[in-house]
């Protein structure tokens, strides 16, 4: 059991100014399930991509079974016996299971022999690891759990001894996840090595033999799972960071401005992302929604702001219900005093090839202030944009500059200025400081608190726990589409971290 399957020595990788992996040293023993945990952006995926040949490390060595290997592409990884189960499945959706499994490992030019071998091997693998999938089923018609099994089978069919699973339970229901765990245990018992990447601590405790914790591109600890606890891992994962100080006084919440009742939202694929969520935001308070990305926060705020249709439930703005399942109309909601800083400023909040001043009216392009009948009032638009740039210290202060040429922080300020300066009653902020430099973060946080102090109802969604804790008067934690807990703004990091990791559930959602 003490043989080494994979050893990473001094792996280093940067993307421009972002240092994604720093001097990573990691040893994974043969025949074990090795968990790698960390927050979003801790560098887990980058590390695994290096191992699977998507990226080349800037420095460092990879040893497989004690031998140094160069992994230039996925072929080399496959040859070294490494298989990967991607978070977003790499399957051809309208292929049969058999075709997907064979793709890239067909044996010969003509498929007949390959098909026969694939069927045989599939049968063996099925028996050996309890991986039942109908080989002739069309992949897209299978439930997600089965599709994932196809991915695992694909790797095994290529003779993988080492399996990397990237956030494998993100798309699974709890019972599917349990099924997966049984499969993984079976695989380990047969001598396979498994690297299990996740941010869900409960899963790590349940399934792994060893666990490494990543934080800010580094591996901060490697522990025997039996020798550690969820609390310790949570603390290691979050770390003792220099808290971004946010100065704010006591909140004085007043009447309810925004109320969400039993909201359920599906995404494009029909997967239910928001499950029966209810909460309220009052004037003069900041409500923060904490959670790991992909737990339904994006869909929640898109549904509230009218961009995405909800399946059922109610959203009540200023005491009046808004249609959540009918034809969505973000423009009408804006007119009724709802402002929204979207999570993804590149694909929603801004049109990057536009001039700054054009983006300064996005969503308000029908506002009487900016148009004369059918025509744009460019004078008003530009002078208005110029004033906002000055007030928000957006640099360079040129309303005619292409938006793509501004830095991330300044781009975000453009969105912020647009939404805040309308003096709305309810504000929704999605990841307000993502990809923003430190100076701008402080500025943005100040503005958000000013809005609260001016008696606005503010909803902040962020995957940065620091940010949520610094800003919020009340914190809601979202996990798997539900609100799994509510805390006040003073809640401890570990406590929130456990909720975010789905370890503790409480309230109506349980």
């Amino acid at each position: 059991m003490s043989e080494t399957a994979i050893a990473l020595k001094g792996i280093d990788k940067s993307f421009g100014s972002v240092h994604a992996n720093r001097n990573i040293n990691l040893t994974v023993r043969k025949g074990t399930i090795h968990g790698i945990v960390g927050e979003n952006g801790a560098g887990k995926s980058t590390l695994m991509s290096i191992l699977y040949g998507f990226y080349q490390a800037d420095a460092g060595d990879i040893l497989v079974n004690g031998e140094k290997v160069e992994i230039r592409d996925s072929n080399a990884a496959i040859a070294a016996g490494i298989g990967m189960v991607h978070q977003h499945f790499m399957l051809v959706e309208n292929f049969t299971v058999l075709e997907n499994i064979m793709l890239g490992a067909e044996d010969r030019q003509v498929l007949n022999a390959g098909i026969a071998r694939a069927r045989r091997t599939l049968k063996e693998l099925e028996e050996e690891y309890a991986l039942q999938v109908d080989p002739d089923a069309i992949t897209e018609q299978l439930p997600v759990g089965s599709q994932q099994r196809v991915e695992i089978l694909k790797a095994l069919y290529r003779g993988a001894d080492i399996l990397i699973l990237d956030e494998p339970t993100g798309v699974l229901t709890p019972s599917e996840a349990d099924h997966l765990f049984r499969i993984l245990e079976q695989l380990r018992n047969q001598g396979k090595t498994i690297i299990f990447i996740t941010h869900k601590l409960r899963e790590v405790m349940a399934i792994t033999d060893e666990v490494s914790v990543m934080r800010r591109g580094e591996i901060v600890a490697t522990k025997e799972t039996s020798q550690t606890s969820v609390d310790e891992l949570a603390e290691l994962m979050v770390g003792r960071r220099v808290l971004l100080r946010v100065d704010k006084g006591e909140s004085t919440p007043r009447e309810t401005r925004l109320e969400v009742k039993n909201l359920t939202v599906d995404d494009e694929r029909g997967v239910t992302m928001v499950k029966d969520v209810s909460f309220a935001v009052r004037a003069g308070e900041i409500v923060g929604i904490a959670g790991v990305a992909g737990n339904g926060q994006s869909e929640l705020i898109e549904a509230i702001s009218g961009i995405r249709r909800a399946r059922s439930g109610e959203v009540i703005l200023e005491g009046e219900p808004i249609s959540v399942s009918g034809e969505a109309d973000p423009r009408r909601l804006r007119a009724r005093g709802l402002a929204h800083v979207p999570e993804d400023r590149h694909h929603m909040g801004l049109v990057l090839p536009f001039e700054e001043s054009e983006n300064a009216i996005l969503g308000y392009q029908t506002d009487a202030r900016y148009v004369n009948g059918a025509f744009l009032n460019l004078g008003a638009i530009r002078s208005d944009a110029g004033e906002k740039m000055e007030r928000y210290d957006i640099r360079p202060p040129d309303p005619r500059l292409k938006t793509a040429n501004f830095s991330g922080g300044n781009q975000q300020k453009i969105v912020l200025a647009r939404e805040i300066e309308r003096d709305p009653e309810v504000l929704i902020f999605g990841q307000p400081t993502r990809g923003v430099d430190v100076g701008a973060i402080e500025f943005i946080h100040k503005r958000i608190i000013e809005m609260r102090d001016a008696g606005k109802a503010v909803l902040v969604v962020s995957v940065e726990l620091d940010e949520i804790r610094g800003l919020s008067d009340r914190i809601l934690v979202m996990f798997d589409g539900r609100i799994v807990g509510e805390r006040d703004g003073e809640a401890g990091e570990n406590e929130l971290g456990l909720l975010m990791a789905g370890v503790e559930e409480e309230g109506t959602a349980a």
Partner: protein
Amino acid sequence: MSTPYAKLPAWAEYVLLPFVNVVVAFLVAGLVVLLAGDSPLHAFQLMIEGAFGYGEGIGYTLYYATNFIFTGLAVAVAFHCSLFNIGGEGQAYVGGIGVAIAALWLDRFVPWWVTFPVAIALSAGFGALWAFIPGYLQAKRGSHVVITTIMFNFIASSLMVYLLVHVLKPVGAMAPQTRTFAEGGQLPTLGWLLKLFGLNPGIAPFNITFLLALVMCFLVWVLVWRTRFGYELRTLGFSRGAARYAGINEAKIIILTMMISGALAGMMALNNVMGDQFRLQLDFVNGAGFVGIAVALMGRSHPLGIIPAAILFGVLYQGGAEISFDMPEISRDMIVIIQGLVILFAGALENMFRPALASAFGRIGRSRRDVAAPAAGE
């Protein structure tokens, strides 16, 4: 996300790079001339003389350019909404029906300046109608507008043959065309404009439609960059996500954009039907709808780029006709090649020379130490 292509200074982006692409297209075209056994330089010289050497030539050059301004604008408007309207040919053809209706109905009763606005409205209307169906199918049923507009070109072609042979042809006539319009259906030439410059316009059909084309350039500019609709159109063209966020009605914008595009193409019919032939004939569009694609790509979908690009193709059409007198091997089909090459190099291969240009600028930038670092990305 990082941009896949290197950034260039604005002037290089909008002037130098397109210029390089067009020059390369012409160099390759020169190669074809060489293959045909002629001297490209001599051909070039003949072409310029034919297009600019005398008043009538200039008149013809501008007459052709008028067609291409309309079809170029049509393609450009759709491009701004990231729609590829290949149907300009069919829309212009069907637009001819509108012109013919106006002229056949009014030409004997009223002067041209009464017929003209009616013809403008009807040609635009018929062109818009022909583009409406692909636009509607794209917006509501997701049928790709590229394929449907191609199909509609062919459908238009069959429809027009049918109408000209069975409906519009005067009883007893042989040729599949309408009767010749009376004076009220004939647009005045702009020969006087050329005479102002001491040029003899000869019989060139350079007519008042040219001025309409220039007006349309201005109106398209206003529409795209100065109206609320244009703002929403461009937002949708750049980013569907942002359009959704801004509450823009996607289907409405797509349908209207296609109709405007079709209307512009439809107006092209005025130039030929009322400005030159004074009757509706088979195949009068003669590829002008397709030239619009090259013109729009070359002109970067901006009216100020489209006008020179249209004139360039006018030069090719007129000059090309002249070359064939001296070089019988080089017929007007040479233009079709150049058109294809321009579409290839200014369109599909538009980024081929970008890395080279960018690294050239990079070297210049490095050698000048005072150049500020580019804005920090992410």
